[in-house]
């Protein structure tokens, strides 16, 4: 075996190195030095994130007889996920200092890195075997992370729900793969693609694709595979929730794009276009309708992120380079907006223990900066200019409509009407913070330096990613438009 093949996996190797260093530090550091585990992990991961932007990383490469490959698009989506993970790691520092968590804080950072490694494999695999390994690596440690507050009932319950649905959806996914193998005789992406194009339409193919979509749809929490989402988001510790809602979702979206648009590209018009069409409408609408009724901020953002996943899927709908660029950009903007929201929720939870929407009444009077950040996040998620969310929504709609059929106009119109519903519930948060005059808003507090730093980064992203056009322009260039 030619071991130099491993050099093709620059980002994966780099991530493993970071993981090992963090693991060794966490294991062997003295009790005093262990307090800095979080910062060590952040520092190492920051260096690794910078490394991801080196030009050599994005060169196309292939390894292991074509099971693994990387190119500029994949390297970019990994970089985007790195940036998001870095912000989450910084946000988690204050949370990890709490007594109940401190003793296990190393494990949190290690599992974050490990699941990220699994997501890398999902994105870069060209063979379904490697893909499944990536999917499981990305799923199972997450269950442990969800159960991190193991003495809290909700956290345990969430973990059980998560692991059961994860295993179940994996089983469905594998069932789908076995159909695919039976139809095409291979698990290599390119050979499946050729075989699907030659084999034409069959009932088996429809079932196979439906099962595969179901498996990945679970990770993305598309309706009707979303039922775990709200409980898990509510029960998990806030940093884990934010990790689940942005990084895990972003990676799954990219994997979904690759599986549908490359492996099953030939079955686009016959099979999965209308499936995706229905999934998008269901996801956006049901996510929105349930989000309106939530009183707990984390449940609220769970449903909001379900509907956001529907918008992300619009990037797949056109199956073009434009769509790929729009999807990457949407994920990037979504990471910053959602992390800003979760950053505020985390800061308030760490300082006061409040997570219900009523606790946000009058927040502007006591903590104006946090309220302002939250408002920016809400506006960005709702797609209000000049914040980045407006640009990402506009571009994802533009990319979807490039496909050109009347049906797609109808789909975009439904999505647009849904943005109004989403605006309603995002404004409810703004209303609570700015307008409601309840007695006894949460007391004024000063959030920790790490929390503030992470929020500043998110605010800079929300304000800058759209207006400063070079981000989207370079993504368009990378996607090859």
């Amino acid at each position, binding site marked *: 075996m030619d071991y130099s093949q491993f050099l093709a996996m620059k980002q994966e190797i780099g991530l493993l190195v970071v993981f090992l260093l963090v693991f060794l530090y966490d294991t062997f550091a003295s009790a005093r030095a262990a307090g800095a585990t979080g910062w060590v992990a952040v520092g190492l991961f920051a260096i690794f994130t910078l490394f991801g932007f080196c030009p050599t990383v994005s060169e196309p490469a292939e390894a292991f007889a074509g099971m693994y490959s990387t190119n500029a698009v994949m390297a970019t989506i990994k970089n985007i996920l790195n940036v998001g993970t870095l912000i989450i790691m910084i946000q988690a520092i204050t949370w990890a200092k709490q007594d109940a968590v401190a003793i296990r804080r190393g494990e949190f950072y290690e599992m974050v890195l490990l699941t990220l490694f699994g997501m890398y494999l999902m994105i870069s695999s060209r063979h379904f075997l490697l893909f499944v390994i990536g999917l499981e690596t990305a799923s199972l440690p997450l269950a442990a992370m969800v159960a991190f507050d193991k003495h809290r009932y909700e956290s345990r319950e969430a973990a059980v729900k998560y692991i059961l649905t994860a295993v179940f959806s994996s089983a469905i996914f594998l069932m789908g793969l076995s159909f695919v193998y039976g139809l095409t005789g291979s698990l290599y992406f390119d050979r499946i693609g050729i075989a699907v194009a030659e084999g034409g339409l069959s009932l088996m193919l429809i079932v196979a694709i439906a099962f595969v979509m179901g498996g990945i749809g679970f990770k993305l929490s598309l309706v009707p595979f979303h039922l775990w989402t709200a409980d898990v988001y509510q029960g998990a510790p806030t940093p884990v929730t934010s990790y689940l809602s942005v990084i895990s979702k972003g990676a799954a979206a990219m994997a979904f794009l690759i599986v549908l648009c490359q492996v099953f590209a030939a079955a686009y018009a016959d099979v999965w276009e209308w499936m995706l069409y229905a999934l998008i409408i269901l996801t956006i609408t049901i996510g929105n309708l349930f989000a309106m009724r939530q009183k707990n901020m984390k449940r609220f953002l769970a449903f909001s992120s379900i509907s956001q996943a529907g918008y992300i899927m619009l990037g797949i709908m056109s199956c073009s380079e434009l769509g790929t660029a729009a999807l990457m950009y949407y994920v990037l903007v979504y990471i910053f907006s959602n992390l800003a929201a979760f950053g505020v929720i985390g800061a308030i939870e760490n300082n006061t223990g409040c997570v219900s929407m009523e606790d946000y009444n009058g927040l502007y009077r006591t903590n104006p900066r946090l309220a302002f950040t939250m408002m920016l996040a809400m*506006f960005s998620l709702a797609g*209000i*200019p*000049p914040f980045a969310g*407006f640009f990402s929504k*506009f*571009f994802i*709609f*533009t990319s979807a*409509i*490039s496909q*050109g059929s009347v049906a797609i*106009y109808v789909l*975009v*119109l439904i999505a*647009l*009407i849904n*943005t*109004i519903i989403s*605006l*309603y519930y995002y*404004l409810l948060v*703004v*209303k609570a913070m*700015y*307008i409601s005059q309840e007695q006894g808003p949460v007391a004024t507090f000063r959030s920790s330096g790490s929390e503030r730093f992470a929020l500043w980064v998110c605010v800079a992203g929300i304000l800058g990613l759209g207006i400063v*056009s070079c981000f*989207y*322009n370079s993504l*368009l*260039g990378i996607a090859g*438009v």
Partner: protein
Amino acid sequence: MFSNILIYFVVIPLLMLGGLALCRNIKQIRAVAVAGSLALLALSVYLLVDYLGLRAAGATEPMLYTDSWSWFPTLGINLAVGVDGISIAMLILSAVILLTGSFASWKINPCPKDFFLWLVLLSTGVFGFFISIDLFTMFMFYEVALIPMYLLIGVWGSGNKNYSAMKLTLMLMGGSAFLMLGLIGIYYQGGHTWNLLQIAQSNSIAPDWQRFLFPMTFVGFGVLGAMFPFHTWSPDGHASAPTAVSMLHAGVLMKLGGYGCFRVAIYTMPQAAEELSWIFLILTGISVVYGAFSACVQTDLKYINAYSSVSHCGLVLFAILMLNTTAMTGAIMQMLSHGLMTALFFALIGFIYGRTHTRDITKMGGLMQIMPYLSVCYVIAGMASLGLPGLSGFVAEMTIFVGSFEHADTFHRFFTILACCSIVITAVYILRVVGKLLFGPVQDDHHRSLTDAEWWERTSTITLIVCVAAIGCFPNFFESLIRYTFSPEIFAVIGMN
């Protein structure tokens, strides 16, 4: 980039935002607000003079001061600016209303700094919208102008403000959802460009697509223009908004709707406009009459004026849909006239409400004895509204109806006559309020101790009255403003004269 004069219409509000953020007390805030809006007014007047000079020197392009800076080149999105006479008229209107609105909110409470920050953000959107000729940028500024309304009404409003703010925001954003789809459609069908002038001049959108995209864009902007049946946000929103916001919203933001209907929907898709104008003529015709009738039965001053705005703004859209130069000229004049006059109304209502703490006309009376200055101003505003010659309302409505009557068919004539009836109804509700509110017996003895207008209130109202009278006295000026907008290559397709 900064060599183009138009860009300063966005730069100055942005500087104002920066300045306001640094302010420490109310005096500094007022200074920044007044200085900034004066600068904008001066800039827009200079632009007008310069524009007329260029036209006199023989410039015949449809838009002047055009410039374009690449933003998202792969998608063809540019920061493209350019103005013609209509845009300049709108810029001046916005600057006047921002200035008078700043004076009208001299003593805004609580959080004056936040109030002015949102107000200036709103006007950034307004100015940006009027200078843009790139559909993407235009739409972006359009939405920037909408969202601050939510907080402005929700925090500083009165009455049922939560409901009104949410209703207004959701309805307007609902309109912009249709609009966004329409604009993306125009981009793909109009030759992959967002530039208004290029789309209009190439006229390359296929008729079938026009029939689909025209209603999208027209309804999208029409919601903001308070077109029936999408007008219901307007009375609630205006009634709950604080004074300056009502002024800016009825005075300027509703004009965004009319301007957008003309500039985007009709400009880029004239064939569909001609074919489908009858549907929207019926709707706007209903707006005109229904708004006026509704105003007759209201007892809240702000509701009266809000329904009157529905009626008058309906007339703007009505005139635009007539698709001839005379009626269009009237539409532009009506936009200016209504903007100034309604701002004056809302300012006066705000000042009266600030004193009497009620807007119910059954609980007030005889204000002419108590606050003669404000009452006289109210009479002037009323006269302008019901179309007294010498004031702006008369010339605008006259031009509109003359233009509308140029159509010889029964359908157009019928609706013209119907819309004409609104003048009479306007007289009914204006005179009813004037009689009841100003000349009746004093209803509440506490009112006798109230004071007349302060200097900042006088500044605000006099500025507006001067503008209203100026339009009424020099109407022929407008014909030269909009002459080149209807350039032959754009409107030849529908045989518009």
